[in-house]
């Protein structure tokens, strides 16, 4: 059934401020703060928590009727004071909501007033303001807006130093840990933003924490303006909206934009870039990882070759996964996203030039009803994407591999590793096992040996 739709049913995207809160969570000793109704903070907290299984405090200016009518300056200022007194944060990351953007609150002005009024008080945290109206874009736009706003607030020009900025996009804490390890191996200082590898996937608390430990310190972000280069993952991320784009324009820090390094080819590009920038060879262990991955491709190809997949999620993830699946002989018959950058097809074409010949279809700005309609025609062997595809998977009896955000019907979403050779390995094993499990379940004999 085809629906000519104006409304959205079963959305394949979340709202702008959610991404900003997650990104702010990757700054050390930072409290995310939503300027709007308290419901936004509550909903976004419960949603992030359901994926990461970690506490996340998000403050709010708790709008009421009169603040909605007369403006939220007072509430924002009271809120900032309370967060400052209670959490003693280094940074408060303020993101707006549809409410405050609609009434047109001038947040920079309110922040100036606040700083003026409290200049003699307790130490003033750094205030970062990201404009994230929920009626524009999706959660991924809020994520990038917060990262860019952070760099814009903090980065300073300085003498070029042996430092590389890394803007990793909305990847998992496991991915972030791996990226940090790679930079350590290359022995090159890295300013990675955001870094929620610990704040969103940490241990029990042997002592009290107002804010969980971990994250990129503000003092390190200051140096972003004097780095040798910025590496930015995400092929649909435009320079005008990105942190690396800002640093290039403002401080002439060269911006290297890569797709998320999933698969051999894209991981190669990442490692080669690191080799070029540092003048060092990658450590032998990465060669090993790469060899094992290729070996696994060879061993596993018999299970997965020519399998048809429907992929959905954030656009950058979809582009990267399309490149990877094409590399292993699987066909993403539909690459779908709730995002709408206008670049999705173009970027896939760049990485998979024969996409049309392979039968790869691309659609942006879709919801799960659109995807399901496509699935009925395309008859995929399985789905790859976040938990929200489960209803469609169950209804149409299509197996599903969980990937991306949100994953709230499986355990360990925060520890799923996708990037680089090792992450791809984990992903590849999961894909192969999804297919094997399906074949095993479908077999009338019940093979125990596949």
């Amino acid at each position, binding site marked *: 059934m085809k629906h000519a739709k*104006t409304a959205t049913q079963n959305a394949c995207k979340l709202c702008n401020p959610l991404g900003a809160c997650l990104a702010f969570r990757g700054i050390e000793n930072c409290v995310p703060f939503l300027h709007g109704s308290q*419901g936004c903070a509550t909903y976004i907290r419960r949603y992030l928590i359901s994926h990461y299984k970690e506490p996340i405090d998000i403050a709010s200016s708790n709008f009421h*009727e009169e603040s909605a009518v007369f403006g939220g300056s007072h509430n924002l200022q009271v809120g900032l004071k309370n967060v400052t007194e209670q959490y003693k944060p280094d940074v408060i990351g303020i993101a707006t909501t549809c409410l405050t953007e609609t009434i047109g609150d001038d947040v920079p002005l309110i922040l100036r007033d606040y700083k003026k009024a409290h200049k003699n008080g307790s130490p003033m945290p750094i205030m970062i303001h990201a404009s994230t109206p929920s009626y524009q874009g999706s959660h991924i736009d809020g994520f990038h807006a917060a990262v860019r706003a952070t760099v814009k607030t903090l980065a300073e020009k300085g003498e070029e130093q042996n430092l590389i900025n890394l803007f990793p996009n909305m990847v998992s804490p496991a991915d972030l840990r791996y990226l940090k390890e790679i930079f350590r191996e290359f022995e090159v200082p890295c300013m990675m933003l955001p870094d929620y590898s610990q704040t969103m996937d940490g241990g029990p608390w042997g002592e009290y924490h107002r804010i969980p430990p971990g994250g990129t310190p503000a003092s390190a972000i200051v140096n972003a303006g004097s780095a040798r280069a910025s590496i930015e993952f995400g092929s649909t991320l435009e320079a005008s909206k990105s942190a690396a784009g800002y640093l290039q324009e403002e401080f002439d820090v060269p911006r290297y934009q890569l797709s998320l390094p999933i698969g051999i080819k894209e991981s190669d590009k990442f490692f080669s870039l690191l080799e070029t920038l540092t003048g060092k060879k990658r450590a032998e262990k990465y060669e090993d990882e790469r060899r094992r991955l290729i070996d696994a491709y060879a061993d596993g190809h018999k299970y997965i070759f020519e399998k048809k997949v429907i992929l959905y999620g954030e656009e950058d993830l979809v582009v990267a996964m399309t490149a990877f699946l094409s590399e292993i002989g699987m066909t993403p018959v539909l690459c779908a996203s709730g995002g709408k950058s206008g670049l999705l097809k173009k970027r896939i074409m760049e990485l998979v030039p024969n996409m049309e010949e392979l039968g790869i279809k691309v659609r942006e700005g879709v919801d799960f009803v659109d995807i399901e309609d496509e699935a009925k025609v395309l008859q995929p062997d399985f789905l790859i994407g976040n938990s929200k595809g489960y209803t469609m998977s169950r209804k149409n009896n299509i197996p599903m591999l969980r990937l991306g955000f949100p994953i709230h019907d499986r355990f360990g979403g925060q520890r799923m590793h996708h990037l680089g050779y090792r992450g791809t390995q984990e992903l590849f094993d999961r894909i192969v096992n999804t297919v094997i499990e399906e074949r095993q379940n479908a077999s009338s004999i019940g093979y125990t040996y596949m």
Partner: protein
Amino acid sequence: MEANIHFPDPSKVREELIQKYPTKVAKKRSKSIIVNDPDLIPEVQANVRTVPGIITQRGCSYAGCKGVVLGPTRDIVNIVHGPIGCSFYAWLTRRNQTRPETLEDANYIPYCFSTDMQEENVVFGGEKKLKVAIQEAYDLFHPKSIAIFSTCPVGLIGDDVHAASKEMREKFGDCNVFGFSCEGYRGVSQSAGHHIANNGVFKHMVGRNNTPNEGKFKINLLGEYNIGGDAFEIERIFEKVGLTLISSFSGNSTVGQIENAHIADLNVILCHRSINYMGDMMETKYGIPWMKVNFVGADSSAKSLRKIAEYFGDEELKARVEEVIAEEMPRVKAIIEEILPRTTGKTAMLFVGGSRAHHYQDLFTELGMTTVAAGYEFAHRDDYEGRDVLPKIKVDADSKNIEELKVVPDPELYNPRKTEAELAELKEKGLEINGYSGMMKQMTKKSLVVDDLSHYESEKLIEIYKPDIFCAGIKEKYVVQKMGVPLKQLHSYDYGGPYTGFVGATNFYKDIDRMVNNPVWKLIKAPWEKAGNGKSGGIEASYVTQ
């Protein structure tokens, strides 16, 4: 059981909670942190605004209206008018279950409809898009009902969801379309949304279908949302006892049932906070009395059944109720007796909801556990102190903004189910009709009651009491567990349930046993263990009021 617990002196705990606050805040919070006395119930400040910048667990008006009250009815298409987030976040997150009678019967609960408002809609108005969305939903499903929920920007840009709904309702003729002004900034918490939802459901749904029902004991179940299948267990018991369930507000319900609700002879209320308005309005308009019951806990379920039988005053029903209780209890007893030695003497804290913090104390009592502190997230004074305080509650600006419907007896349908004399007689027998005596009356003298518990206070309470289990929601879960204390989610039940009735009670006993006696907690060293014996580690409080 109580004798085994060494309570800290509650007045000292209260002092310790308040002492780190600045004077103004201490004054404000001291009114919401109360040492209980069930014989002389003290006043609790509740349903007042959370101070900006203080992390609250409270939600918004939209969450209460769409998420809680309207969400569980399976054949209403709920369209959220606003940007995408609000609809997405309320998409199946409450674990409401429903059971359509046939495969063909409508069930829109798995769907998430949104007008997905874009910038141009904010600038030029979103009514046109809303009407197209309503038309689409109608063309696609031909539902009996479509409900529209306003999110924050809607009221501000001047979209009139009520006019749009009316226009479409008249256009369709066979589909009841109605709107809710439940913008997130209205009221103090989700509680405002409950009231708005009650008004809308009462105005637009109840009383539209006069189909008679031959059932002898016709009741409505109010304030039960079928989380984890709770309603299924209650339905099972009702059927066994011989009660005819006309409608449920709103777990496992349909539009048709709710429209027919006014033919019932009794409303039983579970969650007083979210649905008491409905009980009152139906009593005024149709003459149906309401009675507070609790089906959380095996003993409480038995007690509630007896109360219902007493209300109807039918000897056969009373006898049947006793038979059912006698049939159900042996299984419950067998299970609890096996578990009791492992749970007796342990302590619990409950900070949740507008009624759950009260109801679940019964289950902990059955487990031999003591509730040392409890409080609600979004309740009002009457939920703590009982409805006797209602006339004394000050109406503030936030409550004034929520419409109070003017309800009068229906000229045709008003029919008092009980005469004044009969009601007086029931009261004589100890039945509380149209009343609720609140949580505090049931709590022990030394327990602590805290409304809208702050983050700081919860950590402090855990540190002082070191409870064996903490009951709240997903937002609190992982921070409490980081301190080595298991947290049971009582909004969504983690993945569990049902917890109502006799089967539910045994599910809960087993779940709590698994949680409090789990070996993993031994691996976690709590902060206070490091900080020294019961002494505060590093958490201090300070904040400013408005």
